[in-house]
């Protein structure tokens, strides 16, 4: 397991850049963390680093937001917060997103259970005492 520390919001974009360096070669991420841990905020910073021009905001309601990276690659920002049943993922056509060549960031990945791709990188975001965050990259 590797981890990165974000002491404060000022360091967020630098850490997002390091995160992309560290995980080079993979584009699928399951982002774990409690409500308020900063999942959306972290994904937003990573998407900014990828050069996304669109407004990166919470997909809790829309479930899937799609952006484009600076190099023209699709980014799927998925939030499974409202998913209650795997059947719903079949209905959304999850394979098209999970197994695409695009960047994929999944919030509340717990709700997909075993439907998550085998090679997805699991990332955990945790708040620490002073309000900073620790980003843990859990190796397969």
């Amino acid at each position: 397991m590797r981890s990165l520390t974000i002491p404060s919001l000022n360091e967020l974009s630098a850490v997002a850049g390091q995160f992309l360096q560290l995980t080079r070669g993979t584009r699928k991420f399951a982002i774990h963390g409690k409500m308020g841990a900063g999942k959306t905020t972290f994904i937003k910073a990573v998407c900014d680093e990828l050069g996304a021009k669109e407004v990166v905001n919470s997909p809790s309601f829309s479930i899937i937001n799609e952006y484009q990276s600076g190099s023209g690659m699709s980014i799927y920002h998925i939030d499974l917060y409202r998913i209650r049943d795997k059947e719903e993922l079949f209905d959304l056509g999850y394979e098209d997103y999970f197994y695409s060549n695009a960047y994929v960031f999944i919030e509340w990945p717990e709700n997909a259970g075993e439907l998550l791709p085998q090679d997805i990188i699991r990332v955990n975001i945790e708040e620490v005492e002073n309000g900073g965050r620790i980003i843990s990259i859990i190796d397969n």
Partner: protein
Amino acid sequence: MGITILGIESSCDDTAAAIIEDGFLLSSRIAGQEVHKQYGGVVPELASRAHQQNIVPVVDMALKDAFKSRDEISAVAFTKGPGLLGSLLVGASFAKGFALACNIPLIDVNHLQAHVLANFIQKKEQTKILPEFPFLCLLISGGHTQLVIVKDYLDMKIIGQTIDDAAGEAFDKCAKVMGLPYPGGPVIDKYAKLGNPSAYQFSKPRIKNLDFSFSGLKTSFLYFLRDRLRENKNFINDHQYDICASIQKAIVDILIAKLVKASLETGITEIAIAGGVAANSDLRNRLSDEAQQRKWRIFFPEFHYSTDNAAMIAITGYYKFLHNEFASLDISPSARFSI
């Protein structure tokens, strides 16, 4: 003969159909809410399945309510997006089939533009004062929070929007951490009436332009509850009303501050509200106060036209019809679609 538009809405959890004739609403029907109430919340899978089951009956009911037959319809308007793709596809496919079968034009409608134009929904027997262009519209719902300058029916520009969570989402997620049922907005509104809005203070976002942010408030609320629960494990139960009143005030403060800023910057004093959060009673009261103080004219759509409905799709379709803005049959829905 008049212009009669059939509007179809299926972007999220409700299937709806409505008829507008020459700018006046004849009928508006919404189906599908019962399924969701039973399960608590919007369930995407149920949503698209329910749309398929509901769409034919709901259109049929809207036609009957309006005393119209299929061949009296001049054009069919449908929600192109934004929304859940699976749900949007049901409405789009139905609308295309209807247009093809009746040999009438098809009109694609932006759901967000339609929310704004819900302020123009009126019935013949009503004498309703309508907003004059240009006006500012604050569009607030579970999935959206935007400030829009409306220069004309079909000429709108977003001047501010949320950079993280939507206002309705802030209500829902704060309610969820308090253990309140979904949707959170109406419950918080109800409890807040019994509480003291100044009991607790939460951190305010510091965003200079006209954009909104609710994610910091949500986090601040979470930490606040966590710390208080450490001291008193019944804290939420003991102070439910004060907590609801305080968090509601914090959300409404953010909305009003940006609206005031937008009005001062643009010099526009015609203000319209749209979207489901428009139903919040504290927001309404405080906006009325601001309106008096700042000489605003303020407009709210009726409640059942501020949440998702097809009347707003039909009225937008009507204005697009007048502008000859039609869609071809190969158009596809778009899950992410901006004003």
